[in-house]
């Protein structure tokens, strides 16, 4: 697994767009033009990986949604990339009948069934275009890769496999089966793209176990079927870069409910929490919302701007996991270095103007033409850098506004103390009754974390007090009902231990240093995160290192390559694993991802990939909890 998940999926997409032949490296090859047609699933998969410009470079002249009105373009090959659902198949048949394009390359995101294939065949036959259907492929790409080592299952219909859908009280067996099937299908596609058969470990007694059983069965069936196996032995041994199989850890959201509600302090997690962030795209309103409009004048029209935070953005890649004050400083540094470079270029102008008539200036001229050439060729880079700096300035300013208005730093500090069970200096009630510290949602989150992490449930009196305070603040109490139920269910002897974390405020000195920067963070404490491990990370650590720990000892063990399915939970392999994939059934978020990334950095030579069935921020999670609590 030397190449990251994102690269693998990108390579697969590029190959598909090149008519399923490996793309040539030759830059000056003849252009071949084609049209790309996708459905919403395909769009979600392609958009984080390939930009419109890259599509153009590959010869895609038009990219259209499947269910839009499309005009016939009679002499162009069309590449379809979509899920094999009923309506998509119907639309393909319609296209074939209308003979919109010259040749058709059909690529299905996950495997298509025989009957649907026959539907297409009969439509093609009816329209006499069978020869035009040039190729049909099963791409096995039914997952969305957001980062180098992070993927989610789907974005479009995520209500179907959300935490709420899995854990609701009135769920039928058939519904559960359907949900599990779709999750397993996507995971199977993921492993096909990865090209490795993992060893699966999962806890007992929850949704994760069901997923593990099904996935094991599916992998096993595919391996047994020697003719059609997708993991043939030759390709594995020769093409693999590691000789070990990866470890696949399935976790369930129910194991750790506090982390999604936690207020975060790293850049990416904050953006996801506070702004509208989907599929690596931030949508913000332009213009500061702090100034009141002058009396009588029309209010400033706010337009929505969307920014893409991509892999090519070096600043983003470097700082997406850093704590926010660091980000603010770095933006300032980047701005300064950019201004210095800009000044250099401007300086050249004056030099050019001076030496007009000098005869002995030939030597100077030579230097200057070289400088000019280098300046002109570096201009596009400079412009790009400026654009990125502007982008990050806007985004960071928006985040900072939210932090200041909601006092998110206070919440973060308090929650960290709660999670690490260190002494609390302020009482919970104070924060809840404080009118300008955060929205009612924030307060509810804080209270839920308190409730979840408390060793013993607070007494009835306390609870009443809290309830009243929360209702006064305007919070909705239905999530609390659900959490109570949850706590009763899990009834863990030791509530999830969040490890030692410490939060040190950095003190006056740094605040003085920060006043020079554009981001005046007065009143916002400069908090420094100390390394700590979330439950998911600790479980992963135990399993990878084969350490014995009461939490993970009774995890089940599946090995699809073994001839006999064993029910034992004794691992056959005694060596520690080098690569792992963590998948959280029921939803995950960036805080866990960041924690895993930090863990990987601390242990060199390890690779960890994080996946979840859906990605939600705290607000969305609260909504699901309140829905569950209302039943």
């Amino acid at each position: 697994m030397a190449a990251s998940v994102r690269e693998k999926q990108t390579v697969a997409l590029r190959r598909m767009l090149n008519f399923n032949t490996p793309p040539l490296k030759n830059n000056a090859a003849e252009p071949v033009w084609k049209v790309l047609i996708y459905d919403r699933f395909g769009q979600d998969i392609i958009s984080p990986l390939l930009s419109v410009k890259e599509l153009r470079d590959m010869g895609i002249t038009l990219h259209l949604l499947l269910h839009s009105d499309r005009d016939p373009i009679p002499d162009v090959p069309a590449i379809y990339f979509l899920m094999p659902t009923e309506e998509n198949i119907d639309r393909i048949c319609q296209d074939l009948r209308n003979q919109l394009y010259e040749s058709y390359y059909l690529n299905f995101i996950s495997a298509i069934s025989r009957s649907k294939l026959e539907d297409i065949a009969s439509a093609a036959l009816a329209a006499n275009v069978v020869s035009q259907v040039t190729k049909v492929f099963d791409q096995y790409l039914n997952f969305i890769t957001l980062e180098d080592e992070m993927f989610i299952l789907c974005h479009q219909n995520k209500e179907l496999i959300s935490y709420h859908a899995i854990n609701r009280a009135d769920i039928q067996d058939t519904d559960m089966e359907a949900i599990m099937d779709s999750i397993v299908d996507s995971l199977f596609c993921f492993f096909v793209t990865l090209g490795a058969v993992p060893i699966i470990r999962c806890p007992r007694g929850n949704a994760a176990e069901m997923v593990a059983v099904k996935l094991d069965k599916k992998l096993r069936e595919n391996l047994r079927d020697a003719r059609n196996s997708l993991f043939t032995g030759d390709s594995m041994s020769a093409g693999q870069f590691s000789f070990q199989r990866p470890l696949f850890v399935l976790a369930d959201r129910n194991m750790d409910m506090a982390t999604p509600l936690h207020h975060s302090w790293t850049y990416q997690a904050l953006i996801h929490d506070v702004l509208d962030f989907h599929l690596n795209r931030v949508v913000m309103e332009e213009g500061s919302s702090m100034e009141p409009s002058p009396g009588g004048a029309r209010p400033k029209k706010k337009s929505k701007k969307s920014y893409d935070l991509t892999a090519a953005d070096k600043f983003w890649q470097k700082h997406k996991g850093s704590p926010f004050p660091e980000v603010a400083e770095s933006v300032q540094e980047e701005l300064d270095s950019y201004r210095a470079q800009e000044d250099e270029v401007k300086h050249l102008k004056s030099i050019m103007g001076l030496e007009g008539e000098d005869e002995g200036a030939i030597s100077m001229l030579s230097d200057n033409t070289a400088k000019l050439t280098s300046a002109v060729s570096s201009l596009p880079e400079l412009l790009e850098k400026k654009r990125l700096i502007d982008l990050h300035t806007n985004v960071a300013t928006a985040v900072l506004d939210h932090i200041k208005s909601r006092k998110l730093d206070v919440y973060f500090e308090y929650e960290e103390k709660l999670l690490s069970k260190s002494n609390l200096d302020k009482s919970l009630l104070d924060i809840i009754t404080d009118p300008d510290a955060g929205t009612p949602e924030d307060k509810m989150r804080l209270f839920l974390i308190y409730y979840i992490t408390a060793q013993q449930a607070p007494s009835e009196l306390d609870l009443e007090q809290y309830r009243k305070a929360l209702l006064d603040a305007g919070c909705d109490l239905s999530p609390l009902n659900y959490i109570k139920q949850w706590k009763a269910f899990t009834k863990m002897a030791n509530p999830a231990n969040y490890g030692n974390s410490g939060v040190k405020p950095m003190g006056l000195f740094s605040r003085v240093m920060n006043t020079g920067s554009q981001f005046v963070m007065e009143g916002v404490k400069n908090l420094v995160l100390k390394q700590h491990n979330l439950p998911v990370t600790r479980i992963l650590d135990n399993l990878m290192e084969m350490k014995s720990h009461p939490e993970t000892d009774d995890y089940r063990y599946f090995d699809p390559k073994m001839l006999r399915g064993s029910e034992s939970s004794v691992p056959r392999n005694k060596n520690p694993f080098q690569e792992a994939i963590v998948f959280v059934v029921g939803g995950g978020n960036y805080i866990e991802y960041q924690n895993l990334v930090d863990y990987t950095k601390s242990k060199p030579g390890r690779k960890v990939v994080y996946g979840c069935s859906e990605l939600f921020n705290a607000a969305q999670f609260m909504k699901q909890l309140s829905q569950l609590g209302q039943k």
Partner: protein
Amino acid sequence: MTCRLVDSGACTEMAVDITLLFKASVKTVKTRNKAIGIGFDSTKDEIFKRSRTKSGFTQRAKEVITNITKLKDFLLQHRKDYISAGSLISSDLTRMTDGERDQIDQDAQIFMRTCSEAIKQLRGEVEKQAAPAQIKEHRGSVLDLVETYLKGVCKVYSEQRAIRVKRMVDKKRLSRLTPERSSRPEKTLEVAPTEEKTIIEESSEKSISEVQGSAVSLWEEGRVEDELSPEEIQMFEQENQRLVSEMSSLVDEVRQIEGKVVEISRLQEIFAEKVLQQESEIDNIHQLVVGATENVKEGNEDIREAIKNNAGFRVWILFFLVMCSFSLLFLDWYDS
């Protein structure tokens, strides 16, 4: 159903080719249809369909592409010969003369110009044609792709040319200095490959003739003596030194100028591109400004009219009031 190995840098191909499965399904459906009794006379219709001609646009775009490919192949084929640093000594038959090189340059440029003309023409046609929006967009992007391809090939050509110019300059430098050191007045300077008559050669020839002239005169004077006197030898040495320094300074200057000219031409290209980009924007702004001035003029006119109307209106009101008061007075006088 393929699971091929690709290079070690890429991952193994995991997409499954089910085209054969599809064809099998087609057969199944066909047999099923025959059994039910729905028959399609597919063979005849297929023949008809196949004779459908491609649209003119695609054909022409494909033609342009094939032309550009021909040019590219031609350039690459002769690339080695073109930039070979054929030394003076080797009598390699495959070495290109510079006349041929110039010919290649000229032909390539004409070719590139015609190709870009063809692209522009196609673009104009696309604009004029009334086709649905998607087709227009598609054709526009097709032309963009062809243009990028052309630019790539032009880059290949200009790189070759730049290498050639550099090599020539270096060659001249080498061939200048070494003969200078060992030359005697009566020996003519070795003539380097004279593709272009530069100032150096002319000036050097002039100075050669000068030197020769002075040497001849000296010779004439010293013909009586059997051998050159030491002073004369020294004088000749000094002359040599002077000539050498003059030559080398001239050579340096010209070399530098040549290099700078190449760089400046590159810069000019970049600037020209940028200026062309700005042209369309400036046109836009121009239009807007013209429109704005028109609007302001019309506004002025309207205001003038309004003032006039206002004034006229007032005159009428005044007149009416005066008439009313007069009529009142009149009635009053009439009554009493």
